[in-house]
Protein backbone atom coordinates (compact mmCIF):
# COMPACT_ATOMS: atom_id res chain seq x y z
CA UNK A 1 0.00 0.00 0.00
CA UNK A 2 1.18 3.48 -0.85
CA UNK A 3 0.08 6.20 1.51
CA UNK A 4 0.22 9.96 1.01
CA UNK A 5 0.08 11.77 4.36
CA UNK A 6 -0.80 15.46 3.85
CA UNK A 7 1.79 15.75 1.11
CA UNK A 8 2.41 19.23 -0.25
CA UNK A 9 4.70 20.33 -3.04
CA UNK A 10 5.33 24.06 -3.21
CA UNK A 11 7.81 25.42 -5.71
CA UNK A 12 10.03 28.42 -5.03
CA UNK A 13 7.93 31.34 -6.19
CA UNK A 14 4.87 30.05 -4.41
CA UNK A 15 3.26 27.77 -6.99
CA UNK A 16 1.55 24.93 -5.18
CA UNK A 17 1.55 21.83 -7.34
CA UNK A 18 0.11 19.45 -4.76
CA UNK A 19 -1.78 20.65 -1.71
CA UNK A 20 -2.20 18.54 1.44
CA UNK A 21 -2.77 15.32 -0.45
CA UNK A 22 -4.07 12.38 1.57
CA UNK A 23 -4.49 9.25 -0.48
CA UNK A 24 -4.07 5.50 -0.20
CA UNK A 25 -3.22 3.28 -3.14
CA UNK A 26 -4.22 -0.22 -2.00
CA UNK A 27 -1.91 -3.21 -2.43
CA UNK A 28 -2.42 -5.23 -5.59
CA UNK A 29 -4.76 -2.66 -7.13
CA UNK A 30 -4.44 -0.04 -9.81
CA UNK A 31 -4.97 3.50 -8.59
CA UNK A 32 -5.36 6.03 -11.37
CA UNK A 33 -4.56 9.70 -10.82
CA UNK A 34 -6.53 11.67 -13.38
CA UNK A 35 -7.22 15.34 -13.92
CA UNK A 36 -6.65 18.29 -16.24
CA UNK A 37 -3.12 19.45 -16.93
CA UNK A 38 -1.64 21.32 -13.98
CA UNK A 39 -3.58 19.35 -11.38
CA UNK A 40 -0.41 17.87 -9.87
CA UNK A 41 -1.05 14.26 -10.83
CA UNK A 42 2.43 13.69 -12.27
CA UNK A 43 4.02 15.60 -9.40
CA UNK A 44 2.19 13.34 -6.96
CA UNK A 45 3.38 10.24 -8.79
CA UNK A 46 6.96 11.46 -8.87
CA UNK A 47 6.92 12.14 -5.14
CA UNK A 48 6.42 8.40 -4.58
CA UNK A 49 9.84 7.50 -6.03
CA UNK A 50 11.34 10.82 -4.93
CA UNK A 51 11.99 12.09 -8.43
CA UNK A 52 10.40 15.10 -6.74
CA UNK A 53 10.83 15.68 -3.02
CA UNK A 54 7.71 16.76 -1.11
CA UNK A 55 7.86 20.16 0.60
CA UNK A 56 5.97 18.71 3.53
CA UNK A 57 4.14 15.54 4.45
CA UNK A 58 5.20 11.93 4.02
CA UNK A 59 4.85 9.19 1.45
CA UNK A 60 4.83 5.69 2.87
CA UNK A 61 5.16 2.37 1.07
CA UNK A 62 3.76 -0.46 3.20
CA UNK A 63 4.15 1.81 6.19
CA UNK A 64 7.82 2.63 5.56
CA UNK A 65 8.74 6.26 5.00
CA UNK A 66 10.24 6.63 1.53
CA UNK A 67 12.57 9.36 2.72
CA UNK A 68 14.37 6.84 4.95
CA UNK A 69 16.24 5.15 2.09
CA UNK A 70 18.45 6.66 -0.61
CA UNK A 71 16.55 7.66 -3.76
CA UNK A 72 18.49 5.26 -5.98
CA UNK A 73 17.80 2.29 -3.69
CA UNK A 74 14.16 3.24 -3.32
CA UNK A 75 13.73 3.50 -7.10
CA UNK A 76 15.34 0.13 -7.82
CA UNK A 77 12.46 -1.41 -5.93
CA UNK A 78 9.76 0.48 -7.84
CA UNK A 79 8.89 -0.10 -11.49
CA UNK A 80 8.77 3.11 -13.50
CA UNK A 81 7.23 3.59 -16.93
CA UNK A 82 7.08 6.98 -18.64
CA UNK A 83 5.39 8.43 -21.69
CA UNK A 84 8.25 8.30 -24.17
CA UNK A 85 9.59 4.96 -22.93
CA UNK A 86 12.98 6.47 -22.00
CA UNK A 87 14.75 3.36 -23.23
CA UNK A 88 18.53 3.55 -23.43
CA UNK A 89 19.19 4.05 -27.16
CA UNK A 90 22.67 2.51 -27.03
CA UNK A 91 21.54 -0.77 -25.54
CA UNK A 92 19.65 -3.61 -27.16
CA UNK A 93 16.13 -4.44 -26.07
CA UNK A 94 17.30 -7.38 -23.95
CA UNK A 95 19.89 -5.24 -22.17
CA UNK A 96 17.41 -2.44 -21.64
CA UNK A 97 15.06 -4.83 -19.89
CA UNK A 98 17.95 -6.18 -17.83
CA UNK A 99 19.03 -2.71 -16.63
CA UNK A 100 17.59 -2.83 -13.12
CA UNK A 101 18.57 -6.43 -12.31
CA UNK A 102 22.12 -5.57 -13.42
CA UNK A 103 22.11 -2.50 -11.17
CA UNK A 104 21.00 -4.78 -8.36
CA UNK A 105 23.97 -7.08 -9.00
CA UNK A 106 22.22 -9.98 -10.71
CA UNK A 107 24.66 -11.74 -13.04
CA UNK A 108 24.34 -11.00 -16.74
CA UNK A 109 23.26 -14.47 -17.82
CA UNK A 110 20.40 -14.66 -15.32
CA UNK A 111 19.35 -11.10 -16.09
CA UNK A 112 19.23 -11.78 -19.83
CA UNK A 113 17.26 -14.98 -19.40
CA UNK A 114 14.74 -13.11 -17.30
CA UNK A 115 14.60 -10.36 -19.96
CA UNK A 116 13.69 -12.84 -22.65
CA UNK A 117 10.87 -14.18 -20.49
CA UNK A 118 9.54 -10.69 -19.95
CA UNK A 119 9.76 -9.88 -23.65
CA UNK A 120 7.32 -12.67 -24.27
CA UNK A 121 5.17 -11.58 -21.36
CA UNK A 122 4.62 -8.15 -22.86
CA UNK A 123 3.77 -9.70 -26.21
CA UNK A 124 6.96 -9.17 -28.20
CA UNK A 125 8.69 -11.88 -30.25
CA UNK A 126 12.16 -13.06 -29.16
CA UNK A 127 13.67 -11.74 -32.42
CA UNK A 128 13.23 -8.25 -30.98
CA UNK A 129 15.75 -8.98 -28.22
CA UNK A 130 18.78 -7.90 -30.22
CA UNK A 131 17.24 -4.81 -31.75
CA UNK A 132 17.90 -1.29 -30.61
CA UNK A 133 15.09 1.01 -29.46
CA UNK A 134 15.35 3.09 -32.66
CA UNK A 135 14.35 -0.01 -34.59
CA UNK A 136 11.06 -0.37 -32.72
CA UNK A 137 7.69 1.33 -33.21
CA UNK A 138 6.33 3.57 -30.47
CA UNK A 139 4.00 0.84 -29.22
CA UNK A 140 6.80 -1.72 -29.13
CA UNK A 141 9.00 0.72 -27.22
CA UNK A 142 6.28 1.16 -24.61
CA UNK A 143 6.00 -2.61 -24.24
CA UNK A 144 9.76 -2.82 -23.68
CA UNK A 145 9.40 0.02 -21.16
CA UNK A 146 6.82 -2.02 -19.25
CA UNK A 147 9.05 -5.12 -19.42
CA UNK A 148 11.97 -3.11 -18.04
CA UNK A 149 9.84 -1.89 -15.15
CA UNK A 150 8.82 -5.47 -14.37
CA UNK A 151 12.34 -6.91 -14.62
CA UNK A 152 13.26 -6.77 -10.96
CA UNK A 153 9.73 -7.93 -10.04
CA UNK A 154 8.97 -4.85 -7.93
CA UNK A 155 5.76 -4.94 -5.88
CA UNK A 156 5.02 -1.32 -6.82
CA UNK A 157 4.78 0.19 -10.30
CA UNK A 158 4.49 3.84 -11.26
CA UNK A 159 3.20 4.60 -14.73
CA UNK A 160 3.23 8.17 -16.01
CA UNK A 161 0.95 8.46 -19.06
CA UNK A 162 2.54 5.33 -20.51
CA UNK A 163 0.10 4.93 -23.39
CA UNK A 164 -0.66 8.51 -24.37
CA UNK A 165 1.99 8.94 -27.08
CA UNK A 166 0.82 6.06 -29.27
CA UNK A 167 -2.03 5.97 -31.78
CA UNK A 168 -5.52 5.01 -30.55
CA UNK A 169 -5.50 1.48 -31.99
CA UNK A 170 -2.14 0.63 -30.39
CA UNK A 171 -3.24 2.35 -27.19
CA UNK A 172 -6.24 0.07 -26.89
CA UNK A 173 -4.04 -2.99 -27.45
CA UNK A 174 -1.62 -1.80 -24.79
CA UNK A 175 -4.47 -1.11 -22.36
CA UNK A 176 -5.85 -4.61 -22.88
CA UNK A 177 -2.40 -6.13 -22.39
CA UNK A 178 -2.03 -4.04 -19.25
CA UNK A 179 -5.27 -5.45 -17.84
CA UNK A 180 -4.22 -9.00 -18.73
CA UNK A 181 -0.78 -8.54 -17.15
CA UNK A 182 -2.17 -6.91 -14.05
CA UNK A 183 -4.71 -9.68 -13.53
CA UNK A 184 -1.76 -12.12 -13.55
CA UNK A 185 0.67 -10.07 -11.50
CA UNK A 186 -1.44 -8.07 -9.05
CA UNK A 187 1.06 -5.24 -8.64
CA UNK A 188 0.35 -2.14 -6.61
CA UNK A 189 0.12 0.37 -9.44
CA UNK A 190 -0.20 4.12 -9.49
CA UNK A 191 -1.09 5.24 -13.00
CA UNK A 192 -1.28 8.82 -14.22
CA UNK A 193 -3.41 9.80 -17.20
CA UNK A 194 -5.35 12.82 -18.44
CA UNK A 195 -7.74 10.52 -20.26
CA UNK A 196 -10.80 9.73 -18.15
CA UNK A 197 -11.77 6.82 -20.42
CA UNK A 198 -8.38 5.24 -19.82
CA UNK A 199 -8.78 5.87 -16.08
CA UNK A 200 -12.19 4.22 -16.01
CA UNK A 201 -10.98 1.29 -18.09
CA UNK A 202 -7.81 0.53 -16.14
CA UNK A 203 -8.41 1.76 -12.61
CA UNK A 204 -9.66 -0.17 -9.61
CA UNK A 205 -9.66 3.15 -7.81
CA UNK A 206 -9.68 6.55 -9.48
CA UNK A 207 -8.47 9.74 -7.84
CA UNK A 208 -9.71 12.78 -9.72
CA UNK A 209 -7.52 15.81 -9.03
CA UNK A 210 -8.28 19.44 -9.74
CA UNK A 211 -5.97 22.30 -10.63
CA UNK A 212 -4.20 23.43 -7.47
CA UNK A 213 -3.28 19.90 -6.50
CA UNK A 214 -6.25 18.83 -4.43
CA UNK A 215 -8.37 15.71 -4.61
CA UNK A 216 -11.82 16.16 -6.05
CA UNK A 217 -13.01 12.57 -5.63
CA UNK A 218 -11.64 9.12 -4.97
CA UNK A 219 -13.88 6.27 -6.07
CA UNK A 220 -14.14 3.08 -8.05
CA UNK A 221 -14.87 3.55 -11.75
CA UNK A 222 -18.58 2.69 -11.70
CA UNK A 223 -19.10 4.76 -8.57
CA UNK A 224 -17.31 7.68 -10.22
CA UNK A 225 -19.53 7.51 -13.28
CA UNK A 226 -22.66 6.99 -11.21
CA UNK A 227 -22.06 9.54 -8.48
CA UNK A 228 -19.69 12.35 -9.35
CA UNK A 229 -19.46 14.45 -6.18
CA UNK A 230 -19.61 17.86 -7.79
CA UNK A 231 -19.92 19.78 -11.03
CA UNK A 232 -16.14 19.67 -11.65
CA UNK A 233 -15.97 15.88 -11.48
CA UNK A 234 -19.21 15.52 -13.43
CA UNK A 235 -17.84 17.81 -16.13
CA UNK A 236 -14.50 16.05 -16.19
CA UNK A 237 -16.03 12.60 -16.30
CA UNK A 238 -17.87 13.89 -19.32
CA UNK A 239 -20.71 12.83 -21.59
CA UNK A 240 -22.30 9.41 -22.10
CA UNK A 241 -21.70 8.49 -18.48
CA UNK A 242 -24.79 6.31 -18.29
CA UNK A 243 -23.79 4.45 -21.40
CA UNK A 244 -20.19 4.09 -20.26
CA UNK A 245 -21.28 2.88 -16.84
CA UNK A 246 -22.85 -0.12 -18.59
CA UNK A 247 -19.28 -1.22 -19.18
CA UNK A 248 -19.07 -2.32 -15.53
CA UNK A 249 -21.98 -4.77 -15.54
CA UNK A 250 -21.35 -8.14 -17.17
CA UNK A 251 -23.85 -9.83 -19.41
CA UNK A 252 -25.49 -12.66 -17.41
CA UNK A 253 -25.11 -16.15 -18.88
CA UNK A 254 -28.91 -16.32 -18.90
CA UNK A 255 -29.05 -13.55 -21.50
CA UNK A 256 -32.30 -14.09 -23.45
CA UNK A 257 -31.02 -14.60 -27.01
CA UNK A 258 -33.14 -15.59 -29.98
CA UNK A 259 -32.11 -18.44 -32.23
CA UNK A 260 -30.70 -17.08 -35.47
CA UNK A 261 -30.77 -18.89 -38.82
CA UNK A 262 -27.28 -18.88 -40.26
CA UNK A 263 -25.51 -19.74 -43.46
CA UNK A 264 -21.89 -20.85 -43.69
CA UNK A 265 -19.23 -19.30 -45.84
CA UNK A 266 -19.05 -21.30 -49.06
CA UNK A 267 -22.68 -22.43 -48.97
CA UNK A 268 -24.86 -21.58 -51.95
CA UNK A 269 -26.67 -18.29 -52.24
CA UNK A 270 -29.90 -20.18 -52.75
CA UNK A 271 -29.58 -21.52 -49.22
CA UNK A 272 -28.81 -18.01 -48.02
CA UNK A 273 -31.92 -16.64 -49.76
CA UNK A 274 -34.10 -19.26 -48.08
CA UNK A 275 -32.82 -18.31 -44.66
CA UNK A 276 -33.22 -14.53 -44.94
CA UNK A 277 -35.14 -13.11 -42.01
CA UNK A 278 -36.36 -9.50 -42.29
CA UNK A 279 -33.95 -8.99 -45.19
CA UNK A 280 -30.78 -10.28 -43.50
CA UNK A 281 -29.04 -13.55 -42.84
CA UNK A 282 -26.06 -14.08 -40.51
CA UNK A 283 -22.99 -15.72 -42.02
CA UNK A 284 -20.77 -17.96 -39.87
CA UNK A 285 -17.61 -19.94 -40.53
CA UNK A 286 -17.18 -23.69 -40.22
CA UNK A 287 -16.75 -23.35 -36.42
CA UNK A 288 -19.97 -21.37 -36.05
CA UNK A 289 -18.16 -18.08 -35.48
CA UNK A 290 -20.09 -15.05 -36.80
CA UNK A 291 -18.46 -13.45 -39.85
CA UNK A 292 -20.96 -10.76 -40.85
CA UNK A 293 -24.41 -10.12 -42.22
CA UNK A 294 -25.59 -10.74 -45.75
CA UNK A 295 -28.38 -8.47 -47.00
CA UNK A 296 -31.22 -9.49 -49.26
CA UNK A 297 -29.91 -7.01 -51.80
CA UNK A 298 -26.46 -8.57 -52.00
CA UNK A 299 -27.93 -12.07 -52.06
CA UNK A 300 -29.94 -11.10 -55.16
CA UNK A 301 -27.26 -9.05 -56.91
CA UNK A 302 -24.26 -11.33 -56.24
CA UNK A 303 -22.42 -12.62 -59.29
CA UNK A 304 -21.07 -15.75 -57.60
CA UNK A 305 -23.19 -18.70 -56.63
CA UNK A 306 -21.60 -19.02 -53.20
CA UNK A 307 -21.46 -16.98 -50.01
CA UNK A 308 -18.09 -15.18 -50.03
CA UNK A 309 -16.52 -12.94 -47.35
CA UNK A 310 -16.43 -9.83 -49.55
CA UNK A 311 -20.22 -9.68 -49.85
CA UNK A 312 -20.62 -9.34 -46.07
CA UNK A 313 -21.69 -6.29 -44.11
CA UNK A 314 -19.27 -5.98 -41.17
CA UNK A 315 -21.05 -3.08 -39.50
CA UNK A 316 -22.21 -4.90 -36.40
CA UNK A 317 -20.12 -5.33 -33.24
CA UNK A 318 -20.15 -8.58 -31.28
CA UNK A 319 -21.19 -9.08 -27.68
CA UNK A 320 -20.11 -11.97 -25.49
CA UNK A 321 -21.72 -13.47 -22.43
CA UNK A 322 -18.70 -12.56 -20.35
CA UNK A 323 -18.60 -9.06 -21.80
CA UNK A 324 -20.33 -5.94 -20.59
CA UNK A 325 -23.88 -4.70 -21.02
CA UNK A 326 -22.33 -1.83 -22.95
CA UNK A 327 -21.06 -4.26 -25.56
CA UNK A 328 -24.40 -6.01 -25.63
CA UNK A 329 -26.34 -2.80 -26.24
CA UNK A 330 -23.79 -1.66 -28.77
CA UNK A 331 -24.03 -4.96 -30.64
CA UNK A 332 -27.81 -4.58 -30.82
CA UNK A 333 -27.65 -0.94 -31.89
CA UNK A 334 -24.84 -1.37 -34.44
CA UNK A 335 -26.16 -4.46 -36.17
CA UNK A 336 -27.38 -3.70 -39.71
CA UNK A 337 -30.15 -6.25 -39.24
CA UNK A 338 -31.28 -4.78 -35.92
CA UNK A 339 -30.35 -8.06 -34.23
CA UNK A 340 -27.26 -7.92 -32.03
CA UNK A 341 -24.99 -10.96 -32.29
CA UNK A 342 -24.05 -12.63 -29.00
CA UNK A 343 -21.27 -15.21 -28.75
CA UNK A 344 -19.96 -17.44 -25.99
CA UNK A 345 -16.50 -16.87 -24.58
CA UNK A 346 -14.83 -18.76 -27.45
CA UNK A 347 -16.43 -16.72 -30.21
CA UNK A 348 -19.11 -19.25 -31.16
CA UNK A 349 -22.58 -17.96 -31.95
CA UNK A 350 -25.17 -18.13 -29.18
CA UNK A 351 -27.95 -16.15 -30.81
CA UNK A 352 -29.10 -12.60 -31.35
CA UNK A 353 -30.82 -9.95 -29.25
CA UNK A 354 -32.92 -6.95 -30.24
CA UNK A 355 -32.22 -3.47 -28.86
CA UNK A 356 -35.50 -3.62 -26.95
CA UNK A 357 -34.52 -6.89 -25.30
CA UNK A 358 -31.08 -5.50 -24.48
CA UNK A 359 -32.65 -2.48 -22.78
CA UNK A 360 -34.99 -4.73 -20.80
CA UNK A 361 -31.96 -6.67 -19.61
CA UNK A 362 -30.28 -3.41 -18.59
CA UNK A 363 -33.36 -2.43 -16.59
CA UNK A 364 -33.23 -5.74 -14.76
CA UNK A 365 -29.47 -5.96 -14.14
CA UNK A 366 -27.95 -2.57 -14.60
CA UNK A 367 -29.03 -0.70 -11.48
CA UNK A 368 -25.74 1.23 -11.42
CA UNK A 369 -26.27 2.26 -14.99
CA UNK A 370 -29.77 3.51 -14.37
CA UNK A 371 -28.52 5.33 -11.31
CA UNK A 372 -25.72 6.90 -13.31
CA UNK A 373 -28.09 7.99 -16.02
CA UNK A 374 -30.41 9.52 -13.41
CA UNK A 375 -27.61 11.46 -11.75
CA UNK A 376 -26.20 12.50 -15.08
CA UNK A 377 -29.35 14.52 -15.77
CA UNK A 378 -28.97 16.66 -12.69
CA UNK A 379 -25.20 17.22 -12.83
Amino acid sequence: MITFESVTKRYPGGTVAVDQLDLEAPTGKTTVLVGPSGCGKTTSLRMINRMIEPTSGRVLIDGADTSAVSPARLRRGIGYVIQHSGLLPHRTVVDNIATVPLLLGVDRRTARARSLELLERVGLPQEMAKRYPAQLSGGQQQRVGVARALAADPPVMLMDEPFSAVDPVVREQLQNEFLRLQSDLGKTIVFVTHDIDEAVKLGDQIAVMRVGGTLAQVAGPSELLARPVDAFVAGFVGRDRGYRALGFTTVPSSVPVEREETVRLGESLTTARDRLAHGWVLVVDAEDRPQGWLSEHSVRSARDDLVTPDALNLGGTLATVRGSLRELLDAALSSPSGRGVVTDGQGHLLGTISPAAAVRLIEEHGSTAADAAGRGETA
Partner: protein
Amino acid sequence: MSNAFTWLTDPANWHDQLGTPGIPAQVVAHLEYSLGAVAIATAVALPLGLLIGHTRRGASIVTVANGLRALPTFGLLILLYVVISPHIGGRGDGPYLVPTEIVLVLMAIPPVLGNTSAGVGNVSPAVRDASLGIGMTGREVLLRVEVPIALPLIISGVRSAVLQVVATATVAAYVGLGGIGRYLYDGLAARDFSQMTGGAVLVAVLALALDTLLAAVQRWTVSPGVSGRFKAGTAQAALGPAGAARPGAPEAAAEEGVPA
Protein backbone atom coordinates in the same frame (compact mmCIF):
# COMPACT_ATOMS: atom_id res chain seq x y z
CA MET B 1 54.64 18.86 -57.21
CA SER B 2 57.05 16.67 -59.10
CA ASN B 3 59.87 18.28 -57.15
CA ALA B 4 58.10 17.54 -53.91
CA PHE B 5 57.71 13.95 -55.08
CA THR B 6 61.42 13.77 -55.80
CA TRP B 7 62.17 15.19 -52.37
CA LEU B 8 59.82 12.77 -50.65
CA THR B 9 61.21 9.76 -52.46
CA ASP B 10 64.87 10.66 -52.02
CA PRO B 11 66.24 7.99 -49.66
CA ALA B 12 68.71 10.51 -48.25
CA ASN B 13 65.83 12.46 -46.67
CA TRP B 14 64.60 9.36 -44.85
CA HIS B 15 67.79 8.78 -42.88
CA ASP B 16 69.33 10.74 -40.08
CA GLN B 17 72.65 12.18 -41.20
CA LEU B 18 75.20 14.57 -39.80
CA GLY B 19 72.98 15.62 -36.91
CA THR B 20 70.03 16.31 -39.22
CA PRO B 21 67.10 14.05 -38.37
CA GLY B 22 65.44 12.24 -41.26
CA ILE B 23 61.72 12.30 -42.10
CA PRO B 24 60.75 9.44 -39.70
CA ALA B 25 62.45 11.17 -36.77
CA GLN B 26 60.73 14.48 -37.57
CA VAL B 27 57.35 12.78 -37.95
CA VAL B 28 57.84 11.15 -34.54
CA ALA B 29 58.80 14.49 -33.01
CA HIS B 30 55.76 16.10 -34.63
CA LEU B 31 53.50 13.38 -33.25
CA GLU B 32 54.98 13.83 -29.78
CA TYR B 33 54.23 17.56 -29.68
CA SER B 34 50.77 17.07 -31.18
CA LEU B 35 49.53 14.06 -29.30
CA GLY B 36 51.05 15.35 -26.06
CA ALA B 37 49.04 18.53 -26.46
CA VAL B 38 45.83 16.70 -27.34
CA ALA B 39 46.33 14.37 -24.37
CA ILE B 40 46.78 17.26 -21.94
CA ALA B 41 43.83 19.14 -23.46
CA THR B 42 41.61 16.05 -23.25
CA ALA B 43 42.65 15.39 -19.67
CA VAL B 44 41.43 18.89 -18.80
CA ALA B 45 38.49 19.37 -21.16
CA LEU B 46 36.90 15.92 -21.04
CA PRO B 47 36.12 15.78 -17.30
CA LEU B 48 35.13 19.44 -17.35
CA GLY B 49 32.88 18.91 -20.36
CA LEU B 50 31.26 15.85 -18.73
CA LEU B 51 30.62 17.88 -15.60
CA ILE B 52 29.14 20.83 -17.50
CA GLY B 53 27.00 18.58 -19.67
CA HIS B 54 25.80 16.42 -16.79
CA THR B 55 24.94 19.29 -14.44
CA ARG B 56 23.79 21.58 -17.28
CA ARG B 57 25.64 24.35 -15.51
CA GLY B 58 28.67 26.38 -16.44
CA ALA B 59 27.88 26.83 -20.10
CA SER B 60 29.71 30.17 -19.84
CA ILE B 61 32.97 28.23 -19.39
CA VAL B 62 32.40 26.70 -22.82
CA THR B 63 31.80 30.15 -24.27
CA VAL B 64 35.02 31.47 -22.80
CA ALA B 65 36.92 28.42 -24.05
CA ASN B 66 35.50 28.99 -27.51
CA GLY B 67 36.90 32.48 -27.30
CA LEU B 68 40.35 30.89 -27.18
CA ARG B 69 39.89 29.99 -30.81
CA ALA B 70 40.14 33.67 -31.64
CA LEU B 71 43.72 33.94 -30.32
CA PRO B 72 46.31 34.20 -33.11
CA THR B 73 48.43 31.09 -32.67
CA PHE B 74 51.62 32.54 -33.96
CA GLY B 75 51.41 35.77 -31.99
CA LEU B 76 50.60 33.88 -28.81
CA LEU B 77 53.56 31.58 -29.30
CA ILE B 78 55.97 34.49 -29.69
CA LEU B 79 54.46 36.25 -26.67
CA LEU B 80 54.71 33.15 -24.46
CA TYR B 81 58.20 32.48 -25.70
CA VAL B 82 59.32 35.96 -24.74
CA VAL B 83 57.49 35.96 -21.40
CA ILE B 84 57.98 32.38 -20.19
CA SER B 85 61.16 31.01 -21.64
CA PRO B 86 63.61 33.15 -19.63
CA HIS B 87 62.09 31.70 -16.46
CA ILE B 88 62.60 28.10 -17.51
CA GLY B 89 65.99 26.76 -16.56
CA GLY B 90 67.79 23.76 -17.94
CA ARG B 91 69.68 23.18 -21.11
CA GLY B 92 67.12 20.96 -22.87
CA ASP B 93 64.19 21.88 -25.11
CA GLY B 94 62.18 23.16 -22.13
CA PRO B 95 62.29 26.87 -22.93
CA TYR B 96 60.94 26.11 -26.42
CA LEU B 97 58.70 23.20 -25.63
CA VAL B 98 56.61 24.76 -22.86
CA PRO B 99 55.30 27.77 -24.83
CA THR B 100 54.64 25.54 -27.86
CA GLU B 101 52.67 22.99 -25.86
CA ILE B 102 50.66 25.72 -24.12
CA VAL B 103 49.62 27.13 -27.47
CA LEU B 104 48.68 23.72 -28.84
CA VAL B 105 46.78 22.77 -25.67
CA LEU B 106 44.79 26.00 -25.81
CA MET B 107 43.92 25.19 -29.38
CA ALA B 108 42.78 21.65 -28.57
CA ILE B 109 40.63 22.50 -25.56
CA PRO B 110 37.64 24.21 -27.27
CA PRO B 111 36.59 21.38 -29.61
CA VAL B 112 36.91 18.70 -26.91
CA LEU B 113 35.17 20.79 -24.24
CA GLY B 114 32.43 22.05 -26.53
CA ASN B 115 31.60 18.69 -28.04
CA THR B 116 31.71 16.81 -24.76
CA SER B 117 29.45 19.23 -22.90
CA ALA B 118 27.05 19.51 -25.84
CA GLY B 119 26.96 15.75 -26.37
CA VAL B 120 26.22 15.00 -22.74
CA GLY B 121 23.92 17.99 -22.33
CA ASN B 122 21.80 17.02 -25.30
CA VAL B 123 20.94 13.52 -24.10
CA SER B 124 17.15 13.32 -24.23
CA PRO B 125 15.49 14.38 -20.96
CA ALA B 126 13.20 11.35 -21.19
CA VAL B 127 16.22 9.03 -21.20
CA ARG B 128 17.82 10.85 -18.26
CA ASP B 129 14.55 10.88 -16.36
CA ALA B 130 13.94 7.20 -16.95
CA SER B 131 17.51 6.30 -16.00
CA LEU B 132 17.23 8.14 -12.70
CA GLY B 133 13.71 6.82 -12.21
CA ILE B 134 14.72 3.19 -12.47
CA GLY B 135 17.34 3.74 -9.79
CA MET B 136 20.62 4.83 -11.36
CA THR B 137 22.75 7.21 -9.36
CA GLY B 138 23.92 10.43 -10.98
CA ARG B 139 27.31 8.85 -11.61
CA GLU B 140 25.75 5.77 -13.21
CA VAL B 141 23.59 7.98 -15.42
CA LEU B 142 26.72 9.85 -16.55
CA LEU B 143 28.93 6.83 -17.18
CA ARG B 144 26.41 4.25 -18.36
CA VAL B 145 23.97 6.45 -20.23
CA GLU B 146 25.18 9.93 -21.07
CA VAL B 147 28.75 9.08 -22.12
CA PRO B 148 27.79 6.19 -24.45
CA ILE B 149 25.10 8.32 -26.07
CA ALA B 150 27.41 11.35 -26.37
CA LEU B 151 30.35 9.25 -27.59
CA PRO B 152 30.11 10.15 -31.30
CA LEU B 153 30.26 13.85 -30.44
CA ILE B 154 33.01 13.40 -27.87
CA ILE B 155 35.19 11.48 -30.31
CA SER B 156 34.54 13.95 -33.10
CA GLY B 157 35.67 16.71 -30.73
CA VAL B 158 38.94 14.86 -30.20
CA ARG B 159 39.21 14.34 -33.95
CA SER B 160 38.93 18.01 -34.76
CA ALA B 161 41.41 18.80 -31.98
CA VAL B 162 43.88 16.32 -33.48
CA LEU B 163 43.45 17.72 -36.99
CA GLN B 164 43.97 21.28 -35.87
CA VAL B 165 46.89 20.54 -33.58
CA VAL B 166 48.74 18.36 -36.07
CA ALA B 167 48.41 21.09 -38.70
CA THR B 168 49.45 23.83 -36.31
CA ALA B 169 52.30 21.97 -34.58
CA THR B 170 54.48 23.09 -37.46
CA VAL B 171 54.97 26.35 -35.53
CA ALA B 172 57.20 24.42 -33.12
CA ALA B 173 59.94 24.70 -35.71
CA TYR B 174 59.75 28.48 -35.55
CA VAL B 175 60.98 28.51 -31.97
CA GLY B 176 63.73 26.08 -32.88
CA LEU B 177 62.12 22.72 -32.18
CA GLY B 178 61.88 19.82 -34.60
CA GLY B 179 58.87 18.26 -36.23
CA ILE B 180 57.62 18.45 -39.77
CA GLY B 181 57.57 22.23 -39.44
CA ARG B 182 61.36 22.13 -39.87
CA TYR B 183 60.89 21.42 -43.58
CA LEU B 184 58.57 24.39 -43.98
CA TYR B 185 60.80 26.90 -42.18
CA ASP B 186 64.12 25.51 -43.43
CA GLY B 187 62.73 25.16 -46.91
CA LEU B 188 61.52 28.74 -46.84
CA ALA B 189 64.88 30.00 -45.55
CA ALA B 190 66.74 28.06 -48.24
CA ARG B 191 64.12 28.84 -50.93
CA ASP B 192 63.83 25.05 -51.32
CA PHE B 193 60.21 24.81 -52.41
CA SER B 194 60.26 21.07 -53.06
CA GLN B 195 61.24 20.56 -49.42
CA MET B 196 58.45 22.95 -48.28
CA THR B 197 55.84 21.23 -50.42
CA GLY B 198 57.07 17.84 -49.29
CA GLY B 199 56.70 18.92 -45.65
CA ALA B 200 53.19 20.23 -46.29
CA VAL B 201 52.22 16.91 -47.88
CA LEU B 202 53.62 15.06 -44.86
CA VAL B 203 51.51 17.16 -42.47
CA ALA B 204 48.38 16.57 -44.51
CA VAL B 205 48.99 12.82 -44.76
CA LEU B 206 49.72 12.56 -41.05
CA ALA B 207 46.55 14.47 -40.15
CA LEU B 208 44.40 12.35 -42.43
CA ALA B 209 45.95 9.11 -41.15
CA LEU B 210 45.22 10.03 -37.54
CA ASP B 211 41.68 11.08 -38.44
CA THR B 212 41.07 7.77 -40.19
CA LEU B 213 42.36 5.92 -37.15
CA LEU B 214 40.04 7.84 -34.82
CA ALA B 215 37.13 7.31 -37.21
CA ALA B 216 37.77 3.58 -36.87
CA VAL B 217 37.88 3.89 -33.08
CA GLN B 218 34.57 5.75 -33.24
CA ARG B 219 33.04 3.04 -35.36
CA TRP B 220 34.13 0.31 -32.96
CA THR B 221 33.10 2.03 -29.77
CA VAL B 222 29.82 3.74 -30.64
CA SER B 223 26.73 1.55 -30.17
CA PRO B 224 24.76 0.82 -33.35
CA GLY B 225 21.70 2.05 -31.46
CA VAL B 226 23.29 5.49 -31.33
CA SER B 227 25.02 5.58 -34.71
CA GLY B 228 22.13 3.96 -36.58
CA ARG B 229 24.41 1.38 -38.21
CA PHE B 230 22.10 -1.53 -37.59
CA LYS B 231 22.94 -4.98 -38.77
CA ALA B 232 21.37 -5.94 -42.07
CA GLY B 233 18.14 -7.80 -41.73
CA THR B 234 17.03 -6.15 -38.54
CA ALA B 235 16.57 -2.75 -40.10
CA GLN B 236 13.80 -3.67 -42.53
CA ALA B 237 11.34 -4.59 -39.85
CA ALA B 238 11.98 -1.36 -38.04
CA LEU B 239 9.12 1.08 -37.86
CA GLY B 240 11.12 3.74 -36.08
CA PRO B 241 12.42 6.73 -38.04
CA ALA B 242 16.08 5.83 -37.61
CA GLY B 243 15.70 2.22 -38.62
CA ALA B 244 13.83 2.66 -41.85
CA ALA B 245 16.26 5.12 -43.34
CA ARG B 246 19.40 3.02 -43.02
CA PRO B 247 20.14 -0.27 -44.66
CA GLY B 248 22.56 -2.25 -42.54
CA ALA B 249 26.18 -2.91 -43.40
CA PRO B 250 26.52 -5.80 -45.85
CA GLU B 251 29.57 -7.32 -44.13
CA ALA B 252 27.62 -7.54 -40.89
CA ALA B 253 24.97 -9.59 -42.64
CA ALA B 254 27.51 -12.09 -43.89
CA GLU B 255 28.96 -12.44 -40.43
CA GLU B 256 25.71 -12.82 -38.53
CA GLY B 257 23.44 -14.29 -41.16
CA VAL B 258 20.38 -12.60 -39.65
CA PRO B 259 17.28 -13.51 -41.64
CA ALA B 260 15.32 -10.57 -43.01
